[in-house]
């Protein structure tokens, strides 16, 4: 017994280190903060409240970047405005002719970004709308430019978004021109990568990438970004397609939460099919 105590005293630093390392890995295996439920809502609310208190402090770097972006946007909008006037007339006529169903109008909840955690690559944002305003976990967020991210937690007055430029984000996407499908993932800075596109498929630089209707989490046909580079992945049958996000996350201040609730009928059908497949594969 004395020897054991002597051993523990002698190697207490290494024993403590091993214990803490094991505890850290155990915590990591538990998963992210969303599994802490109510505790998380308290943290989100408190941090959001503190960030909103200091949201009035201007960030000169972000302001300069926002000015440049707004000037470019203004120029683009002037051109787009003229085009869209003509397109609206054409569109209306064509819809009537083809009897296309009207697109579903999503309910949008306007929100201000009161805090951003883009430091050290933890790309989350806090908005000043919460469960009281109808914001729920799993709702997606957009701006006029395109897809921003998804709500991963909400308290009464605040919600936290996982931005598109987050390592955990996966979005089912398609090429607007060729309808080629793939999965959008973030790989650093403002660039995304469209994965799982075979080499034989037609995707070119300049193509617009939209959310796919395959996704139950994101509404379909929301702009994600534009293809800036197409190459071939080494030792792979797939292409490496680099996409520049449409949204400028550095200057993100206002956004809309899209009140989409995925169809319970669809979710139920997909769940039943999964179960049936699993039963068939079990001997």
């Amino acid at each position, binding site marked *: 017994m004395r020897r054991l105590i002597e051993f523990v005293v002698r190697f207490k630093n290494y024993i403590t*280190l091993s214990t803490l390392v094991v505890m850290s890995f155990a915590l990591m295996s538990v998963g*992210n*903060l969303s599994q802490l439920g109510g505790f998380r809502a308290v943290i989100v609310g408190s941090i959001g409240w503190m960030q909103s208190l200091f949201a009035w402090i201007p960030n000169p770097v972000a302001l300069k970047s926002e000015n440049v972006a707004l000037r470019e946007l203004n120029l683009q909008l002037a051109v787009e405005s003229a085009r869209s006037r003509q397109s609206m007339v054409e569109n209306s006529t064509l819809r009537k002719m083809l009897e296309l169903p009207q697109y579903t109008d999503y309910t949008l909840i306007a929100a201000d970004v009161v805090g951003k955690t883009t430091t*050290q690559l933890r790309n989350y944002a806090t908005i000043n709308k919460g469960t009281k305003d109808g914001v729920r976990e799993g709702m997606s967020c957009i701006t006029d430019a395109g897809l921003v991210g998804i709500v991963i937690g909400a308290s009464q007055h605040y919600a936290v978004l996982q931005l598109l430029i987050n390592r955990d984000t996966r979005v089912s996407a398609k090429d607007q021109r060729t309808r080629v499908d793939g999965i959008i993932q973030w790989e650093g800075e403002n660039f995304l990568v469209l994965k799982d596109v075979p080499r034989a498929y037609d995707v070119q630089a300049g193509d617009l990438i939209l959310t796919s209707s395959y996704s139950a989490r994101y509404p379909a046909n929301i702009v994600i970004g534009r293809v800036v580079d197409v190459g071939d992945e080494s030792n792979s049958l797939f292409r490496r397609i680099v996409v520049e996000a449409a949204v400028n996350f550095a200057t993100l201040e206002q956004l809309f939460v899209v009140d989409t609730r995925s169809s319970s009928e669809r979710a139920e059908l997909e769940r039943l099919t999964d179960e049936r497949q699993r039963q068939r594969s079990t001997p």
Partner: protein
Amino acid sequence: MALNFDVQRSHLMATPSLRFILYAVVALILAVIHVVFLGYISVSSVTPDLLLLFTVWVALVEGQFTGMVAGFLCGLLFDVVSADVLGANALAKTLAGFTAGYFWREGFAMVTIGHYRYLMIVAIAGVIHNLVYYLLYVQPMQIDFLMFFLKYGVATTLYSTVAAVFPMLYVNRRRDQ
């Protein structure tokens, strides 16, 4: 004379329980400052790691054992307030505290912190911290770890080392008084 400046000077610092409560309060304040204010001084999304500086400080003042525990708790606190994966920062900061603890010399804490050695210790602990943290960070992504570490890990370490100049100068100045 210089050594007398050490923790024995005030009653607060001489009482271990009060000292540890003070450490907890400082860690909480630093975590909140990090999340709420550090975006204003970020350079290309890189910010100094205030809790790493604090972990190194505690390890140099209290020793390796306390440094490790402080690193674990600071990391856990940061994981909670920054909505990160629980345990990632805790692991990285535990190892940083363990590394910094090797430089602990009884009664010489403020001499070490008020010297350039503190910057070197922060840099070494920072490299260990960021190696571990970014290794865990890039795991779910299909990107080259080395390039990612050279880009973000080294930059974060350098920025933290630069920020460590302030506590170093503060201690240096107080020691001279």
